[in-house]
């Protein structure tokens, strides 16, 4: 198949084949990161610009490592040094960046829909690295890759997503993709953070236990502490009393349950240390998969939706790697 999308704006608009193709491509890239020389020339001569208008360390670094392992030139612009403070519009900033002919623009922005705006007006490929409360597609893809590695499938899996669903782009991206892939999703959190509009996609409940019961995957969301100001819950203490995942909860889940978290962790608020560091936690695998997923996304968009047969097979990958070694020498 051919990956025909020019941009990665969200997972809601992708079909099953496209998502699985992204995951397959990511899986094939995983081994590069395990090699001694973690670099292939797949995107040599290509430029990736990351524009982050919101604080982020891990996502930006993950994209940077991914780009560099593919030999792309990587430039990053963060909110503090951007022109936004000088009154320039987002579109003008983006057009200025685009005039320097990048191949891929990675955008993180506090307003939902900004990647869509730029995709409409720029020539280069746009990757959504998180837009407001809308989507965070590469995060969900790495979550999906982690799930598939452990479970081998999506159909019939029960996935509980717990926390601030209302404001979570991670929850939305996972929800849309998991539904497309045939998993059953349950959403849990205080009613103030659990919009009733989720109902067409998922079972919703304010009770953590009900969501975890029989679950194959428990996915926790990071609680933004400032939500307390909006009266979404009375105190962090009360929140943690009802929504902090403890070892005891896992007894309700499937015996081979896996616990996920996009990070950074609020230990003792949404996840207990015993769970975070325990045998069911796959949190660090998620981080490792993040690089592979972003390599796949940058590769596919940076090469302009290359045909699947052109994606390096294992043998080709080795050949690419050899040439990479030569280049390094």
């Amino acid at each position, binding site marked *: 198949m051919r990956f025909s999308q020019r941009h990665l704006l969200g997972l*809601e608009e992708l079909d099953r084949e496209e998502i699985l193709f992204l995951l397959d491509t990511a899986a094939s890239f995983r081994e590069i990161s395990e090699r001694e020389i973690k670099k292939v020339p797949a995107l040599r001569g290509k430029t990736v610009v990351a524009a982050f208008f919101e604080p982020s360390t891990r996502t930006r670094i993950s994209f940077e490592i991914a780009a560099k392992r593919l030999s792309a030139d990587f430039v990053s612009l963060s909110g503090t040094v951007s022109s936004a403070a000088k009154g320039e*519009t*987002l*579109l003008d900033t983006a057009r200025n960046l685009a005039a320097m002919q990048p191949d891929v623009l990675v955008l993180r*922005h506090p*307003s*939902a*829909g*900004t990647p*869509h*705006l730029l995709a409409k007006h720029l020539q280069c490929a746009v990757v959504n690295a998180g*837009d*407001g*409360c*809308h*989507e965070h597609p590469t995060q969900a893809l790495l979550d999906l890759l982690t799930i598939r590695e452990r479970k081998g499938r999506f159909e019939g899996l029960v996935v509980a997503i717990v926390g601030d669903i209302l404001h979570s*782009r991670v929850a*939305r991206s996972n929800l849309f993709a998991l539904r497309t892939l045939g998993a059953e999703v349950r959403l849990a959190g205080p009613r103030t953070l659990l*919009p009733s*509009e*989720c109902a*067409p996609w998922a079972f919703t409940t304010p009770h953590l236990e009900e969501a975890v019961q029989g679950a194959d995957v428990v996915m926790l969301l990071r609680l933004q502490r400032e939500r307390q100001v909006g009266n979404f819950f009375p105190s962090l203490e009360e929140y943690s009393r009802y929504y902090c995942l403890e070892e005891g909860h896992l007894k309700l889940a499937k015996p081979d349950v896996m616990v996920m978290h996009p990070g950074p962790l609020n230990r003792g608020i949404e996840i207990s240390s015993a769970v975070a560091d325990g045998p069911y936690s796959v949190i660090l695998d998620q981080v490792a998969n993040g690089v592979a997923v972003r390599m796949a996304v940058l590769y596919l968009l940076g090469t302009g939706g290359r045909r699947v047969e052109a994606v390096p097979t294992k043998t080709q990958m080795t050949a690419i790697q050899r040439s990479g070694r030569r280049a390094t020498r």
Partner: protein
Amino acid sequence: MSLWIRGGLVIDPANDRELVADLHIVDGRIAALTPPGSAQPQDHDLVIPAESLWVVPGLIDMHVHLREPGYEYKETIATGAAAAVAGGFTAVACMANTMPVNDSAAVTEFILERARIAGLARVYPIGAVSKGLAGRELAEMGEMHRAGIVAVSDDGQPIQDGLLMRRALEYASTFDLPVIAHEEDRALSQGGVMNEGEWSFRLGLPGIPSAAEESMVARDLAILERTGGHLHIAHLSTAGSVELVRAAKRRGLPVTAEVTPHHFTLTEAAVAGYNTQAKMNPPLRTVKDVQAVREGLLDGTIDCIATDHAPHHQDEKLCEFDRAANGIIGLETAVALTLTMAREIGWSRKQMIAALSTNPARILKLPGGTLSVGAPADITLIDPELQWVMGAESSRSRSRNTPFLGYAFRGRAVMTIVEGQIKWRLGG
């Protein structure tokens, strides 16, 4: 010199009549309505053949934003009035949220003077309820009334303080001025940029619940019960609001209401893809709400159609969705959208023209809205079958912010006559 409009279908809800006739205009007034073919034009008379056209009392849009003074880069009174006549409107009432705010006789007089110079549609200023639209002290309604306002409204800055609303209703009744309310509880709508529902969840955009509008409608109706006066509810958008107004009218409360063409045509789904041309306040709602406002028009709960014509510069729409300006232009698409909707719900021609002309004239106590002999000759000719496409270049407004660009329509105004003078004709 006089004018004959020959052989059109005359629709005159004020006199409850609909007939094919020749209409004679002399000295800016309607002189006679005679059977078709009986016209006896003199040498210098102008004859307008109107066979297959509707001849209706000049349309009146009681809710527009003309942006002057202060925001002339969006619209001026002249460009707004040009868009009005191009859309078939012989009169518009303009909201007070200009800069400076129309909260004084001086600004009211300025607007009227600019409208006189433009010499197109009649322009009726609406004064502010509160000084500077700040929601605290009453503006000088009496002074503005003497200068020519036809209503008061803090549209754009909905009145949060119930006591101020009470005082406004009481005080405005001294001058027989309706209080036009943009109903919105700002605490409930806080941060919202579209309807709260399925689409706000999918798009990750903060929502404005229906309750933000309905709770304020309920509050103001309860106040109205005590104060009397005249409450006119602007741009109703939810099924709950329609039901509240319906019940209030049944109780005999002095309330009237309007709906915009976009609220009876589009749903929240128009926002998909972060289309800032579908961003307005109140937001586009659900299919159920669209049906409810249509039923409200059918049974008379909603008195009139008003466009909330809200011009914005393209840069104010070409940006992040949450930063984009609210509102769309509406003067030139209102007739076509109303005709489309009327065909869908099986609305009578008379009801439709009443909602676009007779009822707004009655609500604001304006001289138009009728084809009675002796009335000012404010007349619109409508071709209900004419097919056309809304193009950016065809608009007379200074702004182009509309979700209807490229829409193919059936029906539009083809001539607009104000006080016996042809102010606009299609292609001419």
